[in-house]
């Protein structure tokens, strides 16, 4: 890429550096300015005032959350594929419309399938 093409991204970088830097500075400042009186009780985790319950807080977790992640990957990427089409849509006209209709219908069929399979029923 030519430097000119990257030029609009420089202010972006400035914003990100500023924001991240600011965040880093205030969290370091808070660590420096605050009192330091550690104690055993203070550093235990807060679990609603009782002793921390036995068992790790990083154990395996219900599979439903992973199903959502899978669904997300499928649908999100498909949707992102739609964006270039959306930008050039006027130029593509009816041809692009038809092509994308096929793609979108496939997507909807996929959604109907997971719906039917009960992947969207969280209650069960």
């Amino acid at each position: 890429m030519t430097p000119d093409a990257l030029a609009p991204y420089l202010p972006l970088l400035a914003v990100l550096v500023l924001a991240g830097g600011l965040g880093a500075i205030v969290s370091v400042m808070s660590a420096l300015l605050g009192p330091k009186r550690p104690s055993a009780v203070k550093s235990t985790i807060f679990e609603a005032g009782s002793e921390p319950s036995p068992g790790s807080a990083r154990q395996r977790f219900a599979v439903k959350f992973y199903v959502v992640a899978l669904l997300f990957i499928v649908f999100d990427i498909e949707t992102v594929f739609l964006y270039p089409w959306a930008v050039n849509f006027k130029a593509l006209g009816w041809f692009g419309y038809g092509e994308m209709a096929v793609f979108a219908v496939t997507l909807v069929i996929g959604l109907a399938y997971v719906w039917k399979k009960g992947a969207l029923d969280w209650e069960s």
Partner: protein
Amino acid sequence: MTALQTVQITRRVDPHLSIDRYDPEGELMLLHFGPQHPSTHGVFRMDLYLDGEKVVKVIPHVGYLHRAVEKLCETLAYVQITPIVDKNDYVAPMTNEQALNMAFEAALKLEVPRRARWMRTLFAELQRIASHLLWLGTFALDLGGALGGGSTVFIHCFRERELVLDLFEEVTGARFHYNTHTIGGNRHDLPAGWSAKVHAALDVIGPRLDEYEAMTLENRIFLDRTVGVGKLDAELALELGITGPILRACGVDHDLRRDAPFHAYDEVKVNVVTAQGGDCLARAQVRLGEMRESVRLVRQMVDGVPEGSINSGKPVKLPVQTKIPPGQVYVAIETPRGELGTYLVSDGTQFPYRLKIRPPSLHALSALPYIVPGGTVSDAVAILGSLDPIMGEVDR
């Protein structure tokens, strides 16, 4: 009990489910929910066994607020006990005092003057309005959070509750722990012009109850969170000794105010509010309906308070002069939360030999292991809120 209708349930949860057998791999997450938790209504703790968000088993732990009230009462003279039990159900202190003093009166075979009985009825009904308003506020807080719509409902409910507390303050000088009931009647008489103030307060509260009903029972999110959540069947409720709005929400038409009238309830007609379904929504419907009924009762009674003395007890110079003859007595009244019983054993001295208080909230909490499993963590919070437990009276 006039009409017992059982709610259909498909299966009943086993509250003693063995986690070792259910989950030998140890994949369930054990979460200590409480005691210092925003929605455990004081200091209550539930140990939740979670499969993802779903609750598999719940073990309730009570006792964090145990103050040995019953034991303490054994060392106090009878007239000194009233202010102590005020702190049991701290949301409805009036009814605590009434239940206690009615037991003493029953043991002494003391007739309470008619005026005092009417006043007690009025206080009980006003207290019911205040207590249910606070329940509505905290229930919304459980459903909506302290940083959101929940706190808006909460503070608005407190605004109306203040009006009732103002009325009590007018009579007793205290807003919360009144110590206004005593053996044989009441301590403070109604001030002049009190009934006009009651009407003025109810003129404000009445229409706002309509608003709250519209805001809750017609609110889509409220319905989504409450319909079918925490389903309790009438059979189980009776088995566990659950009384009050929770039992009536299971379709059981039972109310001590009508079925075993005390105070002046035998002179008025009490329309008992019931609902079907036994879920959180039914409990909300019952309580909202009861507030309306209380408004109606107070309006009906406040102008007709009979004249006469407010206390039939002998004046005493020292607290220990009051002695109750040997024997035992059990008296129960209908508080906003259900049947509050007082069981008194006297050995003829100036102190009670044993004073047992039967709190409705404790029995309500005993339903948790049956109705929470199967729901999510959010449901557990909603169910606990809908049972309206007051830890002060649960732990005593």
